[in-house]
């Protein structure tokens, strides 16, 4: 059985929704970020980057959200197989989500890693403008490839979780994402919320009653978001 090393409302949420959406059994192992457990030797032995998530599998630990999604997709047939004519679409948007949309959004979460304090406002303005361009590209891709971007599936879940965090962060700045500007993604948020696994995961991680259509700050029953 798989073990998902997770922290509430961290990128592990993306994996959790896909696993539960497909009915794949797994255990969770809480990584207590408040105790800096992700920097512990035991966690670093599983994932030397110290990032969350890590998925332990019979073939060893896998890190990186995109890598885990792709491995699960190929192992459990959640997306197009290597010879499928839709494979190029699947792969290019998965990498785009990982190295462009998710990477840019991380910069918004952790501005101090990228700019001095007096540059944070400029940084947010630049990065949020970039993110809105990324969401426009994802909106067009989801419209063109609705099956690949369906709720519960890797690309759909990855995209919609990124919209949740975009609506919530930075906590201290005015909201820069209005999901109603992206009707396809807004419908995806509704569809993801209507799935049976979503309220179960939302309760476990303290995400509130409407984690995607009306996101609010998480209030996890265990563990720490930061």
């Amino acid at each position, binding site marked *: 059985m798989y073990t998902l090393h997770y922290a509430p409302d961290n990128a592990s949420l993306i994996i959790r929704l896909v696993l539960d959406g497909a009915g794949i059994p797994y255990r969770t192992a809480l990584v207590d970020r408040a105790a800096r457990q992700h920097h512990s030797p035991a966690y670093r032995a599983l994932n030397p980057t110290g990032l969350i998530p890590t998925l332990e599998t019979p073939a060893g630990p896998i*890190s990186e959200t995109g890598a885990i999604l792709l491995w699960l997709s190929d192992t459990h047939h959640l997306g197009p197989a290597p010879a499928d004519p839709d494979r*190029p679409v699947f*792969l290019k948007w998965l990498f785009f989500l990982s*190295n462009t949309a998710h990477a840019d959004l991380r910069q918004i979460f952790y501005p101090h890693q990228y*700019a001095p304090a007096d540059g944070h406002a400029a940084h947010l303005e630049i990065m949020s403008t970039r993110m809105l361009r990324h969401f426009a590209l994802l909106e067009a891709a989801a419209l063109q490839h609705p099956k690949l971007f369906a709720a519960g599936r890797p690309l759909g879940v990855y995209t919609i979780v990124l919209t949740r965090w975009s609506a919530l962060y930075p906590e201290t700045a005015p909201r820069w994402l209005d999901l109603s500007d992206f009707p396809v993604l807004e419908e995806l948020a509704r569809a993801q919320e209507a799935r049976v696994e979503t309220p179960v995961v939302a309760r476990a991680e303290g995400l509130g009653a409407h984690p995607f259509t009306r996101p609010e700050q998480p209030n996890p029953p265990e563990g720490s978001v930061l």
Partner: protein
Amino acid sequence: MTLTLHHAPDFASTIVRFALEELELPHTLAIVDIDGGALASPEYRRVNPVGLIPALETDDGPMFETGAILLWLVDRTGRLGPGPQDPGRGAFLSWLFFTSNALHQAALAMFYPHRPAGEANSAAAQAAAQEQIVARLGLIEAMLAAQSPRWLSPDHPGVLGYYIGVLVRWLIMLPPAPYGIRLADFPYLQAVLAAHEARPAALRVAASDGLGPTPFTNPGS
């Protein structure tokens, strides 16, 4: 399989070119006039709506994203990396995505330091990128020392060797002083890249793209 690579020498498309040559896959090069604004043209945006290089046109439609193209080539040919059934697949994917979203992204921040927070904060962005680049190459080096994986090895060519090789090339050549890297600080990686750049396929690409005889370990020579 009909393949057209949208290419500019010594841009990220060169990474894909190394893989195509190593696989001996016939392909056409469509040279992109980057300085002439070709990436913003409606024709190019139909191939790659993100407007970046590379793009690869295939019988199953256009692809973009370097990592995605490399992985698609591995899976279609069964070469240059572990396939979905291989026990090494999970680790290979982890490090391929890491290279794409962490090492490659930090390299871009070094080369285009105004991007994160504007010109006024370029110096700070470059200093942050330098620290990230050294730390991330250090993680790759430690992984090589501990695991000697077949998919990033001096003994077997692989897409990840070519991907990291081109990034290292740029990280040696492009950063302004005092930034940049010394490949000798990463001896396991150096051995992997030396083996890759010496392969006949790599020599063909280096000659064609004008990258010099040792494009990864001693670029600019």
